């Protein structure tokens, strides 16, 4: 017979299997951190936030509810589209057009008795730190790097050694096709999403001159229709990438362009894929990654087993294309991380560059990826994207060269802000080449 007592939770018959694990120690449980008598009760009192109610989000809600969490919030601004139904299993044909967070929350609440799920049909940026302070764990199932970076920066910023409960473990999942990753971030303690940014290098953009004059691939023709032809002809006031009529217009334009250059391979599906930057997604992969995330959430909440982030590994990579391969490793914290690091990150720049060139370079550098940067140096504002009056005032600086005309020197620190990342200021140190 197994030794170690099971401490029955509030509904012992229902949580029979879970209680065996969460209320008694196993061979790998760290005894100093674990108290089987109180672990279930403590977990049930926790508030967990799920960000995203899509492919991963649906799975996350189900998994958390069946892991014994009782108070869950979910944020998603999107509505349900027909193309979600192949994996977002809480939604039906009749739900198309409704808010994802609302439908998902209601479904799981109804199916799993005793769990409370609060939906928020809005953007994460609509909430301030007070809102995020109420949760003990945040789990992300997002498809956008920007939203991830925003919540990461916010949670890192919230850490205050004098405020109890200001550390919010962030568990992040992501998938693409048969591949994905699950990682745990203990803000300021382990490597944060920003430290790991270079693992998600932006796709190289096709040069404009290729689109404009020497297309070779079907994608070039589609991008031409999207970037050049649409702006020139404005067939509809605003491009809506979810409107089949708009995609059809782009498709036809791309097709004609391709014909002109003898390029083959344009399809409606490819057009839609390129314009919307569609990432293939299936239920099976979401199932793997979301469950890996929630497995960590259960371990963090109850200390019933060691979790990612403590003591060593914090990142699991999963690939199912060729057999199954996981790589679970420790991603090191970076001292010069612009969000959680103590020193400024080195930034290679040519002193002869204009400020405009520096501003543009932020978007494509794998270590920065800032699309609308505002730049300050030692109390001096070099360029501000907003408000309009400041933008106008600082705009002339864009023409000036960094060293000679703006007086910046090698090794100088600059602060960069971007509207996508709230109040966080990224620290960089100029390194002249």
């Amino acid at each position, binding site marked *: *017979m*197994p030794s170690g007592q099971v401490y029955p939770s509030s509904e012992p*018959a*229902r949580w*029979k*299997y*879970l209680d*065996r*694990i969460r209320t008694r120690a196993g*061979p*790998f449980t760290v005894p100093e951190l674990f108290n089987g008598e109180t672990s279930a009760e403590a977990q049930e009192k926790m508030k967990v936030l799920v960000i995203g109610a899509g492919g991963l989000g649906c799975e996350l809600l189900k998994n958390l509810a*069946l*892991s014994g969490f009782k108070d869950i919030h979910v944020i998603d601004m999107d509505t349900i589209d*027909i*193309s979600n*139904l*192949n*994996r977002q*299993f809480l939604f039906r044909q009749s739900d198309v057009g409704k808010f994802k967070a609302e439908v998902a929350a209601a479904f799981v609440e109804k199916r*799993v*008795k005793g769990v409370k799920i609060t939906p928020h049909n809005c953007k994460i940026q609509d909430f301030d730190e007070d809102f995020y302070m109420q949760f003990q764990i945040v789990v992300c199932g997002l498809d956008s790097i920007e939203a991830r970076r925003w919540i990461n920066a916010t949670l890192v910023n919230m850490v205050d050694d004098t405020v109890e409960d200001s550390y919010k473990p962030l568990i992040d999942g992501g998938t693409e*096709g*048969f591949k994905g990753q699950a990682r745990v971030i203990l803000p300021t303690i382990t490597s944060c999403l920003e430290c790991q940014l270079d693992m998600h290098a932006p796709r190289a953009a096709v040069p404009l001159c290729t689109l404009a004059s*020497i297309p*070779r691939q079907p994608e070039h023709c589609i991008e031409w229709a999207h970037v050049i032809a649409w702006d020139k002809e404005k067939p509809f006031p605003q491009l809506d990438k979810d409107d*089949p009529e708009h995609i*059809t217009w782009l498709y*036809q334009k791309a*097709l*004609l*362009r391709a014909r002109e*250059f*003898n390029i083959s391979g344009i*399809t*409606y*599906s490819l057009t839609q894929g390129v314009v919307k930057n*569609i990432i*293939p*997604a*299936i*239920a*099976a*992969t979401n*199932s*793997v990654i979301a*469950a*890996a995330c*929630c*497995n*960590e959430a*259960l371990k963090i909440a109850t200390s019933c*087993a060691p979790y990612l982030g403590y003591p060593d590994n914090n990142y*699991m990579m*999963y690939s199912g*294309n*060729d*057999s*199954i391969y*996981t790589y*679970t490793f420790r991603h090191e914290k970076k001292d010069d991380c612009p969000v959680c690091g103590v020193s400024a990150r080195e930034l290679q720049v040519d002193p002869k560059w204009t400020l405009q060139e520096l501003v543009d370079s932020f978007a494509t550098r794998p270590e920065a990826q800032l699309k609308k940067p505002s730049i300050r140096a030692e109390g001096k504002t070099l360029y501000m994207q907003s408000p309009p009056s400041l933008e106008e005032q600082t705009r002339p600086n864009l023409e000036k060269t960094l060293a000679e005309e703006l007086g910046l020197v090698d090794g100088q620190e600059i602060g960069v802000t971007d509207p996508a990342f709230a109040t966080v200021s990224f620290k960089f140190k100029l390194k002249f080449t």
Partner: protein
Amino acid sequence: MTEIVMSQTPPILHRPSEKERKYDRQLRLWAASGQAALESANILLVNSGSGTVGVETLKNLVLPGIGRFAIYDEAKVEEADLGINFFLDEDSLGRSRAESLTGHLLELNPEVQGDAYPNENVKTLKSLLTHSPVFTTIMYTHPITPENISLLESYGQQHQTPLVAIHSAGFYSYFRIHLPGAFPIVDTHPDETATTDLRLLTPWPELVAFAEELTKDIDNLSDFEHGHLPYVVILLHYLEKWKAEHGGSHPSTYKEKTEFRRIVQSSARTKNAEGGEENFDEAAAAVLKTLVVPSLPSGLKGIFEYEHTHPAEQRSGFWLIADAVKAFYEKHKCLPLPGKVPDMKAQSKVYIQLQNIYKARARKDAAEILETVQATPGGQNIDPAEVELFCKNAAFVKLINTTTGTISRADRLREAAAQEFANDENAEMTLQPLSLLPIYLAMQATAHVEDWPSREEILARVAKMVPGSDENERVRQAMEEVARAEGGELHNVAALTGGMVAQETIKIITKQYIPIDNTCVFDGINSRCQILRL
């Protein structure tokens, strides 16, 4: 100019159907052919124990639209099921678990059909297997009775049906795929970057002529033309020069190649407006990757050497084509050309011409192979598209599960254990992760339906499987963790394992991507997997 063309010939519209829209995100992975295979699949789940991992697997197969499934499960729904299984609710209590699960799973996709067993007409697993239409894949979950396993195994043998055994308990799980024979995959979806095959060391006359024509007056080309020479042409041009200066041989050592790369890079014009040439940068960057004497990939070598003597293999299109490709390789000392040209800086017209030269050669190679196939008995009915796909993927075609029946499963486990434990001895030095075989052993000792065994009993069974392994510290730890769960699942580990099994099942049904060979063990304490051949 474009506008004029537009008014003359409005293109035909191919807007996606309702179904294509619903399945859009997965069609981008396995295309219409994979979808059709899924839709004709009929999958049986024999469910038992705490009953979640198989259902999570089915969820991930019902959503993408398999044709049909059946659940065989003798249990009645209890309170504990509601704490672990999402596809049961308060109304299910006391009812047949198979029936409740089937009902809830069917809500996920109206295009899928499903049946629950046992029912009034079909009361046992045996009668289900006798009376049902043939199953495409069978999954069963542990714990299960040895009688049921042998029923399923003999069914699998008789109908050539893949079997998947799944076992999930606490933080641990494993699953094992039992394929009926050697399993070839043509459409393996290799990484795009791996597939470039330009044959720059063995160019054929049309390619040589094309490159010569573009570079015959290379120094007098305008900056625009010079800056838009495709890198393939640039490399061919400087290779010719190199050969002329080196007694007809290519740069072959690393030193020679870096020297060649320097020559290419330094031939770029730098006094132009851009201060350099992107196409020469591309050419220099491609030197080490493309100037490689091709060798036969190990996967294909295995296929060429495999003796396909089973009657089913004799009839299969795959082996007919593989034999023809082998004959082609022996004759020409190279594989059929895939024919794909990566994007590179070039004028549109020149790039398309280059593309057409590669395509034409690929078509010629494929035609030669098709001819060989058709000249073989049974080869007349082979679809030319199948030959074409094989030629395109030849370097990446893969054969798994080639084990021959000379060694028993019990011996194979012992051999694997010896190897794994030996590796663990050196793990600190080799920086390899520790083996997950101890988890498999501890779980395998509790794989059958019975009263829960004592720790001593579990260790005794482990020792019976692999003598001496009960002394291993990590086996003992794994046993403790297994004892903690007492066979009960954790929802997360069941869901994670269900995701992996669904991926593998999709790969087997669609014959796309590469399935595991043959056992996957998951450790939810350290969040990692290991694939073992057991």
